[in-house]
């Protein structure tokens, strides 16, 4: 069961990465305009 020594930190690390990514996306206002975010890619003259 020595493999646990690698697997447990890896599992927790991946989970933590996900959590950090979520909090980063929250901090950078990505959840403020969910409907607009869905529409913006449709207009191509936004360059």
């Amino acid at each position, binding site marked *: 069961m020595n493999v646990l020594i690698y697997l447990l930190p890896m599992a927790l690390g991946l989970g933590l990465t996900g959590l950090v990514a979520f909090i980063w996306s929250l901090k950078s206002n990505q959840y403020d305009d969910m409907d*607009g975010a869905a*529409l913006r890619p449709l207009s191509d003259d936004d360059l």
Partner: protein
Amino acid sequence: MKAATETTELSSLIRRDRTTGMTTIELAVEGVMCAGCITRIESALKRTPGVEDARLNFTTKRLTVGWRDRDFQPSIAIDTVEKLGYRARPMRQAEADNGDRATSRYLLRCLGVAGFAAMNIMLLSVSVWSGNVTDITPETRDLFHWLSALIALPAAAYAGRPFFQSAWSVLRNGHVNMDVPISLGIILALGMSLVETANHAEHAYFDSAIMLIFFLLCGRFADHTLRRKTRSVAENLAAFKAETAHRISVDNEIVLVPASALRPGDRVLVKPGERIPADGRVVSGSSSIDESIVTGESAPRSIGTDDNVYAGSLNIGAAITLKITRQTEDSFVAEVDRLLHRAVTSKSRYVRLADRAARLYAPIVHAASALTLVGWLAAGAPVHDAIIVAISVLIITCPCALALAVPAVQVVAANRFFRSGIFLNAGDAIERFADVDTVVFDKTGTLTLPEPQLINAEGIAPDTLEQAARLALSTKHPLAASLARHASGSLPFDDVSEEPGRGIRTTIGGVEARLGSLDFCGVDPGRASEAGVSSLLAFKCGDRSAIFLIGQSLRPDAAATVNALRRLGLHVKILSGDRAEAITPVADRLGVSDWQGSLKPGDKVAVLESLKRGGRRVLMVGDGINDAAALATAWVSLSPISASDLSQAQADGVFLGESLRPVAETVATSRAARALMHQNLWLAAIYNALAVPLAIAGLVTPLIAAAAMSGSSIIVTLNALRLGLFRQIDGKPAASAIEAKTA
């Protein structure tokens, strides 16, 4: 002059960020429907000199414009957007929204942490559960339990705060709500698991506690998001409704100011077609005004020097000058204030279904747990085992399903109301709407449309109507405006001259055409028999002439709505401030035999109170200032969006658009929602009836606890979603009423 004063008005609404040096203003924008609108508005603004940043939030329909140049006029940004064909108004309540946004982020952060913890603890727990029936070593199990504790304890301390704080604040006041048993369950589950882990035990409940927090946060976040969405639409509407006034300064200059900036003693010019911005007394000029939003009286009133006028009345005659007076000087407004104060202070607080359930639930569960402890001790079990079983009773009964049962239905119902253009002010309104057995309507502005309409369109030759309507396009006079609505897409005539207070004229095919008062057009008033109920507008072109009757007309679906309400088993009654002869035709067309007219605000309250004493649960629908006290007295109340601010503030809900259907829809949806709430509470009770005996018998393992608790939460949530499947009143899908014009 106008531009300069508008700037002073806007300067209170801009925000300066000292670190970036950017100044921003937030605008509510109407008419944004698609991706193209976003690009069009943003790129037009970014091309505007001075503007550095423009970002349109499609969800809230608000535009943030930023600039650094100190000389930049924010009104330029508004003009730019309006030139593209959208309406834009500056937002006032930016601070209130910031609090909302902060709460929303706080809940979302808690949700993220709880979700992370739940996933990782489940990973460890599933290993332990499968290991317990196969070959896990006690050392590995202990390691997994300690790891779970390491994740669960900080996560619960962080993500459980919304529940702990709420539970603590009600406990301090000596009350109980659903968060008390929830917090107790979480804390006991974590504490017991920690002790058991230290004792190398087989079972720990870290997963149950964290899953519970995660599910409950999902519910709470959905609830908050919907409330925020509703509030932001209401704020946008308020921004569009904000009135302006023409104040006459000391040196006789006319300055445009927001109505809220008027002070007693100010002199104000009110042009025809404008609403009176504040209560006042006429100092010069004479006119007639439509006071239907104040008193419910539909016939216009003639006013002259020294007459009192009320905020919200529509000036339909000539320009007048007012002196703003203090509100309490006037008997009518003072009377409304007094009635309102009495109604609000005597209002009994409705106890919500969820709170009633919590009051019943907490003592039963805690007693059951205590009895379990005593029972096991009496049966000779060791103290440690008895305590473990007693705590597991508390954990398994931790009211996850119960706490979701009512809010889940409320979220689905509120979302459905939102789509139909109904906004609820009070959280418990849905439950009260479901109880209603009588509907009382005000007539003017509620059963009838808020703006005056052309009544006798059928009796007029189509080409005469078409020409008169086309001529009416050239003036802003409110009576002409109701005629102009019949101009089917044609353009105004080119050469039109207006004689203020009398009428307008032009030449059509070499013949002079006039639209205006009877003597201006030289039309014989003999045929106009209904004068008094409605206003008259005359048209003459050569030898053709017509008299247009303009007055209150019923909302297009008023009769259908009254019938729908009857089908729902409700008694319909009309209480109006208008005279009996104005109500009779309306009541006849709707088939309502129970009506009373010429009621003062106090009379309306008295009628509602006598209905209340008779055991009736009354839904009051009204819009006027005279209805405000009645709205506050009734069991539950609704106002159209065109209602006076005072009435809207008292009503439990506001509906958009010209249709009256939302009234019947509100009652029907609320009834369906309440039925689902009851079902959900029963589902939660059945879950407890099954799970508690197992727990008392000491048979509950963490696996059973996790499955049962998650399962019951999911079942009540799915049941709540069924509300979306109920049919609308008349089978039509809910129109996007939010986009409908409101003013």
